[in-house]
């Protein structure tokens, strides 16, 4: 038995959809952010899989850029959550509806 490329792709698809379910069922803004990180990581796993199986390092280069964007997104997103918590004293995304008309 050898590990073919399909095993990694199915694991990556599973992790992505767990992240989607996490975004949909959680009401805590920080847990929603963590689910988004999970989805980004599953996309990274697909990129590294193809890069390794094709013997081409461009895929791993793009993982590097995805990590940069994820770090920037986490810093700005958590700053926004702290600012909202100061104003509304909650991080429940059902109560943060000031943009809803």
């Amino acid at each position: 038995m050898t590990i073919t490329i399909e095993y990694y792709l199915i694991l990556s698809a599973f992790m992505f959809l767990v992240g989607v379910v996490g975004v949909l069922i959680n009401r805590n803004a920080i847990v929603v952010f963590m689910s988004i990180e999970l989805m980004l990581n599953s996309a990274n796993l697909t990129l590294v899989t193809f890069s390794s199986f094709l013997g081409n390092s461009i895929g791993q280069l793009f993982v590097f850029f995805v990590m940069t964007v994820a770090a920037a997104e986490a810093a700005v997103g958590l700053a926004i959550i702290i600012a909202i918590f100061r104003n509304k004293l909650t991080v429940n995304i059902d109560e943060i509806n000031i943009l809803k008309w």
Partner: protein
Amino acid sequence: MNIEVFLFFLFGIVAAVTAVIMITRRNPVISALFLILNFASLAGLYITLNAQFIAVTQIIVYAGAIMILFLFVLMLLRPESQKKFFELNPKTKIFAIIVAFIVFAQLVYMIFFASPSANISKDVSKSVEAGTIEAIGRELFTNYVVPFEAAGFLLLAATIGALVLAKKKFD
């Protein structure tokens, strides 16, 4: 059973199980800790794929820096205000799981329909060569130097933006 199969199933099962545990915990600190375990097992999977540089960066950047930031914010905010989060409409939960299951079935069907392993066979020496810091750094500083500078500028902008947002009250 050779070591590659064993390591894939070990890290893969840990990654899948910790992802599911992460989204179903009530306490967000526990889910953050399980997410760190998930990232660590992903680093193990990157090692099995011969991507050494990405595996080390995964540990340092994700499991180190980003998750410490998350835990810091979680412990800064008030924990008792997070109790009633899971009492949401059960219809939403069932709908989310059904939609995710349908999309997962579609993806699995597409992966097996295309069957990429028929066209791609792994060349171990090329794969090891592609994952070294040398190969990635050569691409990064020659063909991809403009995206690299853009990434640096993005990090600077994010640092300043986070400082400005967290400093003053917007009222």
